[in-house]
């Protein structure tokens, strides 16, 4: 029984410490008087698997915030004035369970006006039901997972990328148009990657092409040597690997080190994190690789909100030297979607903000292209062109190669 005081004291201390973990930067959502600041709450991965993708996204959001605060804040239609924006950001360390408690912290303790998800589906997932249960709009940046978008869930807005299962639509068209029949598909067994693989496979099969290899590997895979050997034995005309950034890096490094040469190699992330891939894989390993051509490489001279492509690139590069990539653009675009939603919202209630976002659908063109939502809150406006990395004086340069309406260069196939 001597332990009882210690137990009580320690547990109470534990609870107190946990409670102290929160920032007390709450703000009101009252509709009667304008708040002193609009609080935006988000989590980011400061370390771990998703850090290389999450940090640029956060930088993009911060850049948008700085831009708006320079003007006196974001324009809030309900009050017909600009209100300064304040960011509450927590580090989830790439852990979904930590992210879950932090999202809850943002909703229940910080009572943020706007809830923004972290990068990717894994770290967005814990926010989905929490936001839905608390009737808080979740501004989903790049969590394109299929389970998030259901007819019942009215509280999610996918800002920056289409649902993952429609990503490879243009890629499939490219393969069919090129007459490539012998295809090998390697994918990581996670929602994001497998949904792309499934879509591609079904679209190819509909065109009478059955993949020679259709192989799932764990997301933790860091060596593709064995699978590359078995793929090479089938002599495919195109090898397509769907993974997260660490997987894509390992895959491309393994292709290079194995000495295998394929007519076409496709991976997902070089188009989003090109400078990172250049440093990790090198020019020799990247040249003539295919990837998704993100909007960073497409020029949008005319936009309805925010900076156009040239302005964004120059101003962001000045603010965050060397950090410009497709994910920082995505973070900036999230800010623009929030900006438009607040402009349209009749009040600062979550329902009004959600209605404001829906009103934007089809009427917003930004540096990230057209913003259009389907009935479930999923982004359907953007389509990802097929791009290829060409050797250049600076290493490699990305050009969209398909469809022809967006192409800035002609595809080199087979790769030399």
């Amino acid at each position, binding site marked *: *029984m001597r*332990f*009882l005081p*210690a*137990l*009580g004291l*320690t*547990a*109470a*201390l*534990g*609870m*107190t*410490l*946990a*409670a*102290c*973990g*929160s920032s007390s930067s709450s703000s009101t959502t009252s509709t009667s008087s304008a708040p002193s600041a609009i609080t935006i709450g988000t989590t980011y991965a*400061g*370390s771990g698997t998703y850090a290389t993708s999450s940090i640029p996204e956060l930088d993009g959001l911060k850049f948008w915030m700085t831009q708006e605060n320079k003007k006196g804040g974001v324009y809030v239609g309900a009050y017909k004035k600009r209100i300064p924006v304040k960011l509450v950001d*927590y*580090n989830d*360390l790439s*852990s*979904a*369970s*930590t992210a*879950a*408690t*932090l999202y*809850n*912290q943002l909703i*229940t*303790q910080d009572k943020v006006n706007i809830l923004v998800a972290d990068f990717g*589906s*894994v770290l967005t*997932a*814990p926010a*989905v*039901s*929490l936001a*839905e*249960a608390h009737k808080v709009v979740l501004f989903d940046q790049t969590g394109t*997972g299929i*389970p*998030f978008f*259901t007819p*019942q*869930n009215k509280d999610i807005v996918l800002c920056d990328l289409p649902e993952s299962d429609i990503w490879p639509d243009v890629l499939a068209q490219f393969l069919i148009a090129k007459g490539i029949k012998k295809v090998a598909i390697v994918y*990581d*067994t*996670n*929602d994001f*990657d*497998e*949904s792309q693989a499934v879509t591609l496979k079904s679209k190819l099969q509909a065109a009478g092409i059955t993949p020679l290899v259709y192989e*799932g590997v*764990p*997301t933790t895979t860091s060596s593709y040597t064995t699978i590359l050997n078995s793929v090479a034995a089938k002599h495919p005309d195109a090898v397509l690997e769907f993974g997260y950034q660490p997987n894509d890096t390992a895959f491309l490094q393994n292709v290079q080190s194995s000495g295998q040469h394929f007519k076409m190699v496709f991976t997902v992330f070089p188009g989003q994190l090109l400078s990172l891939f250049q440093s990790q894989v090198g020019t020799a390993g990247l040249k003539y690789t295919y990837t998704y051509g993100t909007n960073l490489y497409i020029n949008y001279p005319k936009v309805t909100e925010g900076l156009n492509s040239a302005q964004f690139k120059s101003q962001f590069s000045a603010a965050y030297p060397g950090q410009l990539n497709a994910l920082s653009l995505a973070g900036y675009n999230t800010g623009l979607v929030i900006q438009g939603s607040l402009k349209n919202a009749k009040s600062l209630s979550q329902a009004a903000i959600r209605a404001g976002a829906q009103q934007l659908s089809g009427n917003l063109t930004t540096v990230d292209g057209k913003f259009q939502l389907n009935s479930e809150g999923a982004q359907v406006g953007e389509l990802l062109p097929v791009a290829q990395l060409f050797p250049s004086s600076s290493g490699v340069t990305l050009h969209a190669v398909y469809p022809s309406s967006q192409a800035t260069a002609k595809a080199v196939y087979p790769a030399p």
Partner: protein
Amino acid sequence: MLLKFRDQRQNPSEDLKGQSRWRRAASPWVAAAIPVLIFLVAVHVYSNELLLVDMAIYIALAQGINIIYGFTGYLPFGYFGFFGVGAYVAGYGIIHWGLSGPVAVLVGGVGGALAGAILLPLFRLRGAYFALTTLAAGEAFYAIVSNPSLTSITNGPYGLNLATAYSSGWSFGMAVGLAGVAILVAALIKRSRYGMTLKAIKDDPYSAAMAGINVARDRFYAWLIAAAIAGVGGAIYGWAISVFYPQDVFDVTVSVFAIVFALFGGIGSIWGPTIGAALLYAIYNVVGVSNPQYFQLIYGLIIVLLVLFAPRGLAGLMASIRERRLFGGGAR
């Protein structure tokens, strides 16, 4: 009878013995009740229920580790496997059998125990071999659940969406209940004849077998209890966050945290894992949130200091302090 009673009342030492017996009988219940009460109060003070849910689950998991490692000496690195199985079985129950959340959580516990039963042959190994093979088994469960070929059953890598069954109040209540039950079970085992049996197995299984103890059976029961606790914990966790992927619940971090929390508090004791989990999980959230750049440094330092100066955890440290008070500074 009356005379005897009078004698007892007149004899202070008998009175103290009676009081001591009462205390001994009540202490497991008190050890379980105090954290439960603190949680029930805390939720009214601090509204981030999910953090409290996680803390309660980790207290339970630390007690599960206490039962299998603290009492029997078998360290399961793959403890997360039961956690994940529990989450998936409960999720399957909610989606396909239409079970309510609380019932699905209990079914998740059964799932965890069944997974434990499947791994029974691993007890042919000891020490590091046992620890590593359980780790492999946990990864195997993950590979099976996330296997695209099983998408029709487990939904493969696409994860589960239990949003229709989401209930923050119920999941909080179940998590706190689990923490209380896990502490109570561990305390009752420790004080029972069965607990003495497990201790004998931990000290020397061969001598225990020679003394007539059914080592395989008794160890198996402890294993099943620990696995069921993890299964229920995983089920509550999955239910509480509602949308999750296989890698979220089959996460080796769950094992690492549960083991570190139990070791920090002191395995073999009852209050040690409870305090270890509550304190370290709170520090994890405070440091991780407020000073993420120092998080790994601070957490690493805590663990290094623990190993250097308190290898038996907080419980061992407290025992040493008590011994010094009783026998003086020079006593050994």
